[in-house]
């Protein structure tokens, strides 16, 4: 596919009188591991909600591999997998049931989703927990279920909204391995995270937003010039954003 994996043009999202996303434009190319950063309330999750269909947006267009997320929402949504910040699942369902049902929502035939469910349970070391209710799982296992759920329909674009929030260092490193493998297999990944070392390690392009606008976008090396760490650049932009200097 030669079209951008994700193309956002002049996105505006208001919540009542509050403007969460203010004319944001962004392109993510196929195969990229893209870091999408910003302080809390910057508009990261609002952007993700607009891309995935969780929220409506006020202005602009969003295309996923050329498919308009409003007009061609069925095609667009089949190409996107979302691992959200919060555990938005039926806590009484088992991992196997969660994967099977979500596969069904995506129109996958029973045999296909059974095969894919078993493969993902194995891949994320969930097989021995497959029949436990979600609420009984540890935080790390819950995160893995969220990732497996995002992948059940084999999407081309994977959106990960703070996928390692609240997990211990060991598991975070395990998740990094999974994510790298997925990217190497050709999945385009858009990652939001407050752990900048994670973004530094995994992503090849980065955007930082503040006040609902892109403050800086570029290759990872652009954020780390003159011996700066990503965190230094991030803090500079975050401070400028607080002072309202982000244009």
């Amino acid at each position, binding site marked *: 596919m030669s079209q951008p994996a994700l193309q956002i043009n002049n996105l505006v999202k208001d919540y009542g009188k509050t403007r969460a996303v203010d004319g944001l434009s962004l392109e993510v190319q196929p195969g990229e591991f893209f870091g999408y950063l910003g302080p809390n309330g910057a508009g990261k999750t609002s952007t993700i909600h607009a891309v995935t269909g*969780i*929220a409506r947006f006020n202005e602009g267009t969003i295309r996923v591999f050329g498919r308009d997320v409003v007009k061609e929402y069925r095609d667009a949504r089949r190409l996107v997998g979302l691992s959200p910040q919060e555990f938005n699942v039926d806590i009484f369902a088992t991992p196997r049931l969660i994967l099977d*049902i*979500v596969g069904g929502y995506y129109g996958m035939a029973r045999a296909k989703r059974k095969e894919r469910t078993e493969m993902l349970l194995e891949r994320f070391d969930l097989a021995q927990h497959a029949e436990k209710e979600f609420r009984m799982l540890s935080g790390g296992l819950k995160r893995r279920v969220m990732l497996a759920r995002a992948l059940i329909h084999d999407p081309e674009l994977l959106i990960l909204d703070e996928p390692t929030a609240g997990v211990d260092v060991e598991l975070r490193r395990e998740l990094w391995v999974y994510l790298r493998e997925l990217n190497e297999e050709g999945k385009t990944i858009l990652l939001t995270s407050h752990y900048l070392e994670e973004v530094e390690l995994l992503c090849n392009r980065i955007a930082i937003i503040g006040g609902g606008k892109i403050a800086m976008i570029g290759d990872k090396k652009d954020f780390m010039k003159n011996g700066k760490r990503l965190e230094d650049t991030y803090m500079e932009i975050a401070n400028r954003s607080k002072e309202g200097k982000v244009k």
Partner: protein
Amino acid sequence: MNWIGLYTFVWREVQRFTRVSIQTLVTPWISALLFIFVFGSVVGQRIDTIGGVPYITFVFPGILIMNVISSAFSQTSSSLYFQRFARHIEEILVAPLSHLEMILGYIAGALARGVVVGVGIVIIGIFFGAVAMYNVPLFVFYMVMISVVFGLIGLLVGLWSDGFEQLALLNTFVIMPLSFLGGMFNSIDMLPPIMQKVVVWNPFFYFIDGVRYSMTGISESHIGLGMSIIIICSFALGSLVWVLFERGWRLRS
């Protein structure tokens, strides 16, 4: 049309109420059993026939649809509200399902629960000799339409509710009073004259009367009018629900 998605949605709704079957199925069956016992064996023996049928046969349609209404309403209202509350509605919102498919899925769940509860109550009624059947196609029509109408009302409440209290509000202050005042356990002739004039403006009266006619052949209103009212109600409510889903009201933030 995403047929597999829709089938999965319906199966999920059915699985949701069968998972807590004591609450969703056994409770209405026990409630109906107690009503049938009291109205049939205790009160019924002291009341003469109404319209030529025993009192228990006359009130049985009321007992039946009271539980079908409650089941259909609870299925959609609690399902949608809990999904919004726990945010796993997002699982559905990101899937390639249209709003029509989502609404059909919820309503099919309400219909399934209404049918399972209804069939169980009919079986209990047969055991107590309370069941008559005058017009089967009309009976099926009313059971389906009542489940659809109250499933749609449940969706409106599930969208509107911000808390558990609101979820129960409509059932307590609108559905139950209108059901009881719509001739669920009595003939319209038993009401004071002023109430007889008021009750004809209560749409629930026509639903109850229609089911009673389909089971006993006794009617206190024009059946064509009753059928028209329930069809109009289902289209009006269905359109309203569809518009709200399309706008994403309390659904897509």
